[in-house]
């Protein structure tokens, strides 16, 4: 188990290092920072002074090392807009995003997993067809179209819910519902096919044949095995908690991390973009790590085979 964990941890750290390297390369490849910040009309001496003060006259490998050390110190640069620390600009928005994504994730899991299991157990019935229809719609209707449809229905037609902003008590309802439906649809489809596959396995037949009640077979034998592929998907969803709602935040004008990312991209506020990228990479990696550990707990076979997955 410890060997398994060690390898997982090493790979997680390695991917973070790779992402940092990637941002460093992109940052350097996107042009001369001195020119970008001081503008094309800056004097040569000013450019030179800027380069020296930011260490841009150092060899590239040293720049890379100092970039790395700065990140480790938590020094991620300042927002070009107001000179605030980029990290705190992003950190301010995180609670707002979590206020949408955490309830949405709960809806995803409760609605998606139960619908998927139910559909698998009642295969080829009306309920199954309805669940499948729901999940196909969830895949083909982009989140922003769904969001606009909900606005059209509940804000414009019925006028019962606010269409955007975050200042009213009910403002969060439509964004959470949008995120909840989209994720639940995907999860339902995935859970259904995982369950169907497991239910067709011999050990399920064997368990029923030796007289275990159907409920116990479903709960202990089938569902636990179907959990493994579903967990992979949940890991991705968990990783999207911070910045997985870019489009929905944009439609509803919700001041979260996603909205900040769009604004920063449009203004080319590179420090903020970089912080969000690193933050997302870190969340994703952490989520994957948690999922990997859960795999190990649920499925003892995986502990001894570190390369096997899902």
């Amino acid at each position, binding site marked *: 188990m410890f060997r398994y964990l060690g390898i997982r941890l090493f*790979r997680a750290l390695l991917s973070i290092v790779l992402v940092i390297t990637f941002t460093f390369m992109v940052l350097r490849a996107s042009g001369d920072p001195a020119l970008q910040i001081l503008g094309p009309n800056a004097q040569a001496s000013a450019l030179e002074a800027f380069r020296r003060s930011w260490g841009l006259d150092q060899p590239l490998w040293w720049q890379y090392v100092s970039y790395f050390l700065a990140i480790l110190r938590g020094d991620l640069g300042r927002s070009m807009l107001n000179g605030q620390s980029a990290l705190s600009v992003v950190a301010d928005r995180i609670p707002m995003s979590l206020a949408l994504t955490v309830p949405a994730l709960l809806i995803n899991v409760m609605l998606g997993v139960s619908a998927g299991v139910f559909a698998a157990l009642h295969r080829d019935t009306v309920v199954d067809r309805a669940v499948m229809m729901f999940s196909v719609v969830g895949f083909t209707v982009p989140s922003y179209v769904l969001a606009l449809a909900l606005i059209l229905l509940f804000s414009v037609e019925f006028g019962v819910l606010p269409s955007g902003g975050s200042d009213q008590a009910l403002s969060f309802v439509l964004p959470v519902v949008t995120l909840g439906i989209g994720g639940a649809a995907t999860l339902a489809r995935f859970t259904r096919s995982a369950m169907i596959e497991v239910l067709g396995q011999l050990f399920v037949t064997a368990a029923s044949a030796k007289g275990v009640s159907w409920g116990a077979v479903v709960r202990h034998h089938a569902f636990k095995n179907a959990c493994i592929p579903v967990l992979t998907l949940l890991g991705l969803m968990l990783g999207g908690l911070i910045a997985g709602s870019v489009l929905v935040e944009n439609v509803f004008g919700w001041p979260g991390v996603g909205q900040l990312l769009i604004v920063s991209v449009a203004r080319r506020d590179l420090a903020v*973009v970089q912080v969000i990228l690193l933050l997302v990479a870190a969340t994703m990696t952490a989520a994957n790590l948690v999922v990997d550990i859960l795999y190990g707990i649920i499925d003892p076979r995986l502990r001894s085979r570190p390369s096997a997955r899902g």
Partner: protein
Amino acid sequence: MSLAMIGKPMAKSDKRSRPSLYVSLAGAWVILMLLTALFADHLSPFTVTGIDLSHRLVPPVGLGGSLIHPLGTDELGRDVASRLMHSVQISLLVAFGATIISICFGTIVGFMAAHFRGPVEQIILMLIDVQASLPFLIVALSILAFFGNTLALFIGLMGLYNWERNARLARALAISANAQGYAGAVRQLGAHPIRIYFRHILPNTAATLTVTATLSFPEIVLAESGLSFLGLGVQPPLTSLGIMVSYGREYIATAPWLVIAPSLVIVVTTLSISIIGDWLRDTLDPTLR
């Protein structure tokens, strides 16, 4: 984003024989869209930027509009039907370009991993893992922030979509092909690796690769429309389906057709291509789940 690889689970019935009604309808819609994209310049009665301020926000036929503007006009009096045709053209152009880049790049990288094995393969697998752990939308937005945006760059960027999935698949296919007799035989005859991979292994794995390309096509359409919706994808004066939805949302209370028309095209098109992708998969390569 790699979630949508979960193809629609199909009933194991007569999918192999002839296309069902759904598949035929989906095929008809896709052909209609392709024709629209090819002949948009000749079909559309108005230009994309043809402003007519005296006919602003005219509703579509059936809601009080006239046949001159069958789908109504927008806030600047531009013909919605004409803009829709050009949007389909641009959106499909981006999606086709991106799919081709993604499948070519992924295949080459995957074949390289299968050929060299050892450290090269480990590095490629590591890159694949990193890419798979980052949401495409975030990566795309970051790259756009750093490099700015042109149509060519945007298509290239969209070409990164799913490359890791294609690479992983191509690697697995090439490894199993290498273990088969035909690849070994050609190698014994002294053929160059490039010849083995592209003249012998590629044709034998093309069916599977085509199916994955078709299955990821609708995802690319959705990703493109999402970025364009945010105003960070295709740039005006060019128009795309995402841009039309984005512009229309300001008038959602007074002129909902501006949002509904492009939204429907996005949904029906992605749905149709997914249906065809599923059908292709079940017909050509049932092993792909």
